[in-house]
């Protein structure tokens, strides 16, 4: 059994406790996932009151809907990431603002938020994640940017193409190539 399998099983058990309305499980879930949820909210909305609102809304949703989780939705982490992204984008649209990821320089994010080291290790610590991290560090900038826009901006494919001033086909191909390049080490690992 790999580390990630262990993590997934532990996360599933945590969700089961949340479904039984176990308050101590909520404290553990917060310690485990709040960094992920807040990071996504900040990437979409910038750090601030709205991002904090999103964190609160996501955890209350998690408390009320943990029983609705099933494994066909992916791992608990996948489910929580999707929920956080959707909640943040809904908030973004209600505010009629542009996503923070559309800033020219991502480092423009305010420094008021405390940075946490290697969050990935805390929730995804295994060989596969390490391989993907390595691939991510050497991913061409344009492909990484296209992937981040796809996930964090809340824009449609066409809007991303307009933002990048590139044809739609180029944008789709860029996203595909970037994602497949990240996945390449996993395929090689499987073949080995």
């Amino acid at each position, binding site marked *: 059994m790999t580390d990630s399998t262990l993590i997934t099983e532990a996360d599933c058990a945590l969700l089961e406790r949340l479904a039984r309305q176990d308050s101590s499980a909520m404290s553990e879930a917060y310690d485990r996932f709040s960094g992920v949820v807040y990071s996504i909210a900040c990437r979409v909305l910038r750090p601030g009151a709205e991002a904090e609102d999103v964190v609160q809304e996501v955890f*209350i949703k998690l*408390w009320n809907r943990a029983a609705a989780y099933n494994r066909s939705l992916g791992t608990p982490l996948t489910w929580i990431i999707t929920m956080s992204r959707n909640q943040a984008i809904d908030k973004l649209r209600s505010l009629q603002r542009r996503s923070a990821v559309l800033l020219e320089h991502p480092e423009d994010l305010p420094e008021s938020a405390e940075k946490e*080291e290697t969050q*990935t290790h805390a929730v995804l610590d295994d060989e596969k994640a390490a391989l993907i991290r390595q691939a991510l560090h050497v991913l061409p900038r344009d492909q990484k940017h296209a992937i981040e826009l796809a996930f964090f901006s809340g824009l*449609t494919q066409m809007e991303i193409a307009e933002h990048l001033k590139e044809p739609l086909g180029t944008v789709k191909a860029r996203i595909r190539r970037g994602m*497949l390049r990240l996945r390449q080490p*996993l395929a090689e690992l499987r073949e080995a």
Partner: protein
Amino acid sequence: MLTEHQEEQASLYALDLLPESEVAAFQRDLLAKPELQQLVEDLRLCREVVVLESTTLRPPDHLKSSILQAIHESKAPLSKKTAQATTSKPSSLTLLRLAVPWSLAACLTLLAVWLQHEGQTRQIVLNRLNAENLAQRKTITELREKTETLNANIAQLESRNLVQAGTIAQLRATSPQAGPWTPSTVSVLWDKTRQEGLLVLSQMPAAEPGKIYQLWVIDPEAGGPISAGTFEVQADGSARILFRPSQRIRQAAQFAVSLEEGGAKEQPQGPVILAGAGL
């Protein structure tokens, strides 16, 4: 082996960027292809790493306590009521008063859950049936188009076959003084093998009362015109007559139409108004 299109859709799907209109079809594809399932699973893991690596921010400390407080408050009213119910000794009537609304609420909740589940199941079945219906309609349309193409090919081949096996003749008025018989087109198709022909004409005036048109085939080897039968034109002046001459034709050199009094004749007696040689 997955196509580039499938890889592209899997990438967009993993990033929640696949348009709503394409999601259902992709999910059907996903169910049928284990290789695609593996790809999506891997790409989701990639997405998770991208998300976790892109920003690593820690939420403000006060947030945890406010969330836990909100959750505690959402549980509180129920806890208080439970406590009251266990510490006092209610009468049977009070118990009944409490039990009836709660039972009703429980029933309604169960009913709502069941209806929601039932609705979702029906929606899934409906979506599947719609997809099947759409696919079948597409197949029917394709088959219709193929049938039309085949029919057109058959008609073309039959027409060619008729032309190759037989004779075509264009009939014209025999003289400018022939009268009102100046139809726009009079054609005869003659199939020598089957010994039958087709007379097609339009804008031909109807024969006068007591008279009738008679078609003749001129075979030089027969020694005289051979009757191919009488005919009438329709109210709009058109006619489409399949005819078989009264005896075997060796060579259909010419066709003619005469106007006969009373009925069919063995040899033309009335004026020959239209005639034309085989091409």
